[in-house]
């Protein structure tokens, strides 16, 4: 699971959970996989992000080095920043671990890089 995905993910599927965001990350295995840099895409995606959540998520798994806590107004002109954002968003992969719902504490396992967001039949009743 990449951090860009984490930034969009909620646990609203659980009954009674209102926002379910952000999920806490607990990672036991993290891999760095190189991804081609595309400044156009990164520029387009940054306004869609909750930057604070991204920073905290990166920090919680020890990968916030050099990542600014806030976005500058003219971030699209700062290639160095875009490359850092690119690395944090697309190249860090949580392979094993789990996500935790901030409201209910329900855990969702991540195995082989794929989060399992399914509830049990008892939970959806």
């Amino acid at each position, binding site marked *: 699971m990449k951090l860009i995905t984490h930034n*969009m993910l909620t646990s609203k599927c659980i009954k009674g959970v209102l926002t379910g965001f952000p999920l806490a990350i607990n990672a036991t295995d993290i891999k760095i996989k190189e991804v081609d840099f595309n400044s156009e895409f990164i520029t387009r995606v940054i306004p869609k992000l909750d930057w604070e959540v991204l920073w905290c998520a990166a920090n919680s798994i020890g990968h916030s080095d050099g990542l600014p806590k806030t976005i500058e107004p003219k971030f699209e002109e700062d290639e160095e920043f875009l490359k850092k954002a690119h690395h944090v968003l697309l190249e860090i992969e949580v392979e094993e671990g789990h996500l935790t719902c901030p409201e209910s504490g329900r855990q969702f396992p991540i195995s082989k890089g794929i*989060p399992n967001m399914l509830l049990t039949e008892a939970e959806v009743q």
Partner: protein
Amino acid sequence: MWRRYLMWFAQEHVDFRHAEMQSILSLFNIQIRYIEKPCIQKPYWIVELPSEDCLRKIASRSVLIKNCIELWSRARSEIQLHKNLQNSLKNTSGTWILQESMNGTSDLHVCPKEMIETYCSSKKTFKVDVETFCKHYTMTEKVKKIEGFSYLPLEGPVQLKNPDVTLSYIEFYGTDPNNVPEEPYDVFFGRWVVDGQRDLIQVHSLKKRHFIGNTSMDAQLSIIMANQAQVKSGDVILDPFVGSGSLFVSAAHFGAYVWGSDIDFMMLHARTRPTRVGQKVRTKEESIRANMKQYGIESKYLDVLVSDFSLPLWRDDLKFDAIITDPPYGVREPTEKIGIERDNYTLTDEHLVNHIPSKVEYGLPHMYSDLLNFAAKHLEMGRRLVCWYPLVREKYFSMGEITRRERKEKRAEEMAANAARKEKEYQNRISDNT
């Protein structure tokens, strides 16, 4: 000056010809003039476009176009075509001399002299291709036809491999192989400009793909869907019924970043039973991600998630540029969501480990209404949801049509005998009041 082109289509998936073309034209914002009413009965359209660049853009996307030719002349017979071309060499007016009739097939079709002469320099290598649609000619006969053009002032050397100029002579004998006329209905001559994306069908063929499932979408249909969704570089798309990720391949090929989800844990982890004949176990290389790697588009892969589409998953304010999906129809893949019929069901902690939740029927109307609501909420304004919808054939077509369709439509083969499916394209037009 607007230029006149012959667009030659593959005579398959003809029902998608208009849809694919309209989507591509509006994607690039290209104006087009139809010289003949565009149809699906014949494999070609005659159009005018503002520039050759427009034509190249269209051909860079269309999988239904075979090739595009700058039209120098057309006629209803070989003799008249030669007359037209000979007259073209004398046409110094700088414009076309035409006599267009309403049914489109006029015999007078004389292009300006400059159009031909630009490509006749002694420095330019050339070749002439002869194509006969629905009729076979031997090489000797074709060479004889080429020699018929000897009056053209082509001064450059002939070169069969990668020449500077490829000229194309086409005879059209209709589309019914059981009823081929003596003389062609239509003949064309012009300069080949560009091919469509037919080659991509082989490149993305399921036969050579690492990881496929029972209902992986055919390469050609996937490309058509990506075109209908007007996918472009840097877009973010979602497939909420991703399965083996076959729709990822074409969308990412056109530059989109892809997210997917599916309720089937085993499928996303590539642990379902192999689909290929004779294969006993899934190999290690099989996964959605490996497919992306195979085609050199792994950088476009975002993530796949195991999730139940009937429940919310994404942040409320997340907007996708397109949703491209092929939901299950309950025929070859079941329509399911998590649930249980029993009331007050509880799970004990010891059973919770590795528990596989039970599923209940996720009725089609329910699923499609969820999908439409989801799209209305999560699509960028003006962007599209492209999906398939299964139809029971008896209810939609008369018997005569069924047999005809069964022969003609590849997409119908994928379905059980009594059902067909239709592609739907919804555009998000819900007005934004905020």
